[in-house]
């Protein structure tokens, strides 16, 4: 200010004396300012250190932090133990609130000291805090489960009686269900080993068919079907006429299948060859070592059966396999096209041959 006044002096005298005088005055003022700042800092430091003796020492901070942490943890455990004895929830609630407060105080402590703490300490203490919070949340939900919001009608007296009746009904119903859960089996070949199983489906028999638990068998299903379910086959050869609906295959190993169908799903198959004609894309899931080739089955009258089921033309989809376990653009390692040299020839099954060894 003084300088300015001097400068604005209209006389504009610029002799060296006055300049040096002004200069020294300014220096003095600056040093004074600096001194007072230092003093203030000193005072504040003293007062601070009175409040928190841990100031600017990592070790003392950590000591304090861990002791506070331990206090919170013991408090939490105490609350949990109280709950076992089913004590008053109001008490627990206030206790939990206190704990939550001390956790946030702990958080504040970390925040205040974070500027001098090493990075690692800051991170680990923040982690500890979030763990504590989680624990509190857990205890909270254990001890004081939130009530679900619901509208309730006030006239409860008459309702209560009704409720009792309803509950009784429920019990009766459940018992009923338990005893009735056993369901009938669908038609099929089950639990056989080392035999040839043949079945002809006439024009009327248009149902589903099951192959289950077969080992080292040859299965021939001639004629039209609606759906087949295959489950747990090992070392089997399966030849099936056209299927109007879908095929579901699960858990097969070392088998050969010839199938014509609208949809084919293959789950948990290992080392198995599929000769398919299929209208949509066949899919595999949890399978490996499965190979695909076109349908090569022939029996007298198969052409009309195929036409009947709209499976006469080969769509070429037998090779468009989707692997649900391999959702990438590259070829799945779980399946491959069966090389032509390794394919079986056309398989002819005679319609007259009905002899199925002890089926």
């Amino acid at each position, binding site marked *: 200010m003084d300088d300015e006044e001097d400068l604005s002096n209209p006389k504009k005298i610029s002799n060296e004396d006055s300049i040096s005088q002004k200069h020294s005055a300014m220096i003095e003022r600056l040093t004074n300012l600096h001194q007072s700042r230092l003093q203030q800092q000193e005072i504040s430091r003293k007062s601070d250190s009175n409040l928190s003796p841990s100031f600017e020492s990592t070790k003392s901070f950590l000591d304090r932090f861990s002791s506070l942490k331990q206090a919170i943890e013991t408090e939490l455990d105490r609350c949990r133990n109280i709950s076992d004895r089913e004590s008053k929830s109001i008490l627990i609630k206030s206790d939990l609130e206190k704990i939550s407060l001390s956790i946030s105080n702990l958080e504040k402590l970390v925040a205040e000291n974070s500027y001098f703490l090493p990075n690692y300490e800051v991170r680990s203490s923040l982690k500890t805090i979030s763990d504590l919070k989680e624990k509190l949340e857990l205890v909270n939900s254990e001890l004081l489960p939130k009530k679900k919001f619901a509208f309730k009608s006030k006239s409860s007296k008459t309702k209560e009686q009704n409720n009792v009746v*309803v509950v009784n009904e*429920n019990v009766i*119903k*459940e018992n009923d*269900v338990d005893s*009735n*859960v056993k*369901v*009938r*089996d*669908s*038609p099929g070949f089950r639990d056989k080993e080392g035999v040839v199983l043949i079945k002809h489906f006439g024009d009327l*028999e*248009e*149902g*589903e068919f*099951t192959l*289950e638990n077969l080992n080292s068998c040859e299965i021939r299903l001639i004629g039209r079907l*609606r*759906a087949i*379910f295959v*489950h747990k086959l090992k070392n089997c050869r399966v030849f099936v006429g056209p299927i109007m*609906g*879908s095929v*579901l295959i699960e858990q097969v190993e070392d088998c050969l299948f010839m199938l014509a169908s*609208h*949809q084919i*799903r293959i*789950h948990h198959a290992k080392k198995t060859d599929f000769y398919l004609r299929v*209208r*949509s*894309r066949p*899919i595999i*899931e*949890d399978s490996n070592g499965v190979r695909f080739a076109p349908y090569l089955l022939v029996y007298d009258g198969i052409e009309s059966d195929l036409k009947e089921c*709209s499976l006469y033309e080969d*769509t070429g989809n037998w090779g468009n396999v*989707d692997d*649900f*376990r391999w*959702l990438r653009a590259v070829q799945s390692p779980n399946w491959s096209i069966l090389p032509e040299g390794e394919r079986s020839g056309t398989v002819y099954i005679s319609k007259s041959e009905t002899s199925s060894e002890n089926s």
Partner: protein
Amino acid sequence: MGLLSIIRKIKKKEKEMRILMVGLDNSGKTTIVLRINGEDTSVISPTLGFNIRTINYQKYTLNIWDVGGQKTIRSYWRNYFEETDGLVWVVDSSDIRRLDDCKMELNNLLKEERLSGASLLVLANKQDIQGALKPAEIAKVLNLDAMDKTRHWKIVGCSAYTGEGLVDGFDWLVQDIASRIYVLD
């Protein structure tokens, strides 16, 4: 003009219903949706991901989400739960062996809080196949009677192949949702 079109849009939106179709693989979800929509059902590959169809049904617009049921992708069902008005659980009534799986998956679904308000239509599909279980039998196996009393539900036998029963089921579903949401109409 701007305001009018906004109002129209809101009006239109009000009549929308979001319907989620789920169920085990091979139960016929996609076939049902295509059948209702009058599309060709002769070539349907197992669903990898999902299909959406918007269908005008009575005075409502149904947004039908048909989500694939293969085991590998069942865990993604929950991505579709939000804002679902109606849940359609499709059962292959001829697949007796996997009814336990079916029951378990349905129970898991019904525990989901985001679906707690949705009306449930159970479609006992493939009734055209000889030997398929009747809707009443399916209801017993799935223990539907023991469901939470607040749930609106119904089981209907149907055949996506012949189309039988589908309209009955969706009529009920749409009416039920409408009566919950558009009470003022």
